């Protein structure tokens, strides 16, 4: 009797220990959310800076009390869109090649390279961008500097490759063999099978990869900070214009800021947070439909 009771007690203790571990993540996300939102909404609640001016302003001059982030929102969206436009096709074709075409040896090499790419610290992408991509962009740019939307897009496109490749590859490999065999039996070629059968069947998994890639691109900071130029104003109108994404605005100035300036950097974080939450909700929805179908 006693032994059983003790055993049960032990179980409960271990179980609650696991529960505590599980709560670390939950508590962290709650703490971060509350902290960022509390600080970020303060200036608007206390009316020290109008929300409308913050969201629609196109100049960031803390010393002159001008805190507009509209041009940063545009910059972040353009950079992300560009990275997706270039990175996603490359990533999907890589995934198709690895899972459908490459022999097992060359497939392994490519997969290894992609995994390695995922492990490179982002600041090194930035250094690479500043040393190689920026001077190259400068050569073809009508502007006098190479730091630009284009340089940012190129760096981000490389950075999202691992995410999109690995998730796409997993979902392509998960497409049942019978689908392909059925397609071949109807006389379709390999390419036709890939584009008409395999990719549509793996669609939701690929979309999940793309959306996670978007999340990575919009949240990237260190690599971008070195190649985007970070101007204090100006909506980008060409690929060669400099941009200041939301993330670098926070990273550049948080160390020095105080008062309203600091609070509005948190507000920038809130805007970024909302973007990321929308992306995550989209992922959840996609994953659900995948399970449902």
């Amino acid at each position, binding site marked *: 009797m006693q032994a059983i009771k003790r055993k049960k007690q032990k179980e409960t203790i271990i179980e609650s220990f696991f529960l505590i571990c599980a709560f670390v993540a939950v508590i962290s996300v709650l703490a971060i959310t509350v902290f960022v939102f509390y600080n970020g909404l303060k200036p608007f609640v206390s009316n020290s800076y109008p929300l409308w001016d913050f969201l629609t302003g196109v100049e960031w001059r803390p010393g002159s009390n001008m805190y507009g982030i509209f041009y940063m929102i545009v910059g972040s969206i353009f950079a992300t869109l560009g990275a997706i436009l270039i990175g996603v096709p490359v990533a999907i074709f890589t995934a198709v090649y690895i899972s459908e075409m490459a022999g097992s040896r060359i497939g392994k090499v490519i997969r290894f390279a992609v995994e390695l790419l995922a492990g490179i610290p982002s600041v090194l992408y930035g250094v690479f961008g500043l040393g190689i991509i920026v001077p190259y962009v400068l050569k073809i740019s009508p502007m006098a500097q190479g730091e630009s939307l284009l340089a940012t897009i190129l760096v981000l496109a490389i950075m999202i490759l691992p995410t999109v490749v690995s998730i796409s590859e997993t979902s392509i490999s998960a497409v049942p063999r019978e689908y392909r065999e059925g397609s071949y039996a109807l006389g379709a070629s390999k390419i036709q099978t890939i584009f008409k059968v395999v990719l549509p069947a793996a669609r939701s998994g690929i979309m999940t990869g793309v959306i996670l890639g978007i999340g990575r691109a919009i949240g990237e900071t260190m690599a971008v900070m070195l190649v985007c130029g970070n*101007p204090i104003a100006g909506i980008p109108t060409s690929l060669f214009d400099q941009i200041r994404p939301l993330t670098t605005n926070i990273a550049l100035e948080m160390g*020095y800021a105080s008062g309203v300036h600091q609070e509005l950097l948190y507000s920038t974080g809130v805007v970024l947070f909302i973007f990321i939450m929308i992306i995550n909700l989209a992922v959840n929805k996609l994953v659900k439909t995948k399970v449902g179908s």
Partner: protein
Amino acid sequence: MSKSLKKVLVSLLIGATVLTLAGCGSSGSTTSTTKDAISGEINGGGSTSVQKIIDAAGSEFTALNPEAKFTYSGTGSSDGIKGATAGTYSFGCASRELKTEEKGNLTELIFAYDGIAMVLNPANTVTNLTKDQVAKIYMGEITNWSEVGGADAPIVVVSREDGSGTRSAVEELVGFEEKLKADATIKEGNGNVQTTVAGNTNAIGYVSLTFVDKTVKAIDVDSVKATVDNVKNKTYPISRPFLAMYDESKVDDTTLAFLDFLMSAEGQAIVEEHGGIAV
């Protein structure tokens, strides 16, 4: 029970005696250093511009006083002031004058001066700019090198991030406060500015005189060369003080000993060795 109580009392007494003696020591003559070994941890922080100097002085100080530990985090002037006020740093450093609202209870100590060099790509033929020209370039009124005697090429303006001590010092000393042109490239840190200027023929930037290396060219301002001597004799127009500060009520003896060392002939030699200008 009573034995342990006794022990506590005795150790408290000893502690009090030591503290009183230490108090006497520091209030006594300041010229002769006490024979007691200086121990304890000093953690300073603040301006990145002073980092080279403070780090060197710190390692010399700990070499002389092996019992002491020294760290300095280069996090920016404003952070140094905040840290010194809050007591999270034993002392803070700033590379600019303190604003009135920042002063609080802080005791300030100027331990060096600094010059800020305007730097161009070595391929640029311009060798001198007036302060007014620099201001106009940074405000976007002069946009081509031909307007200041150089080649017919657009000027790429490189500046530091908002809140940087170097940036506010330059804006104030040159006279374009809060009027930086909108499309200036913003780089974080002296090193990044230098890398950018070294990599772009048409760029202009500014870095601490202590940071200038051979990848870029420091130009004359108002026909005065950007040299240590010229900052010292106050002819070079873009210069500023390096400050250390602490809260009198929170500071410890080890920190004060370090600051004393920094102001001594030996400490000032380290300042000069690392490109700063001795006071």
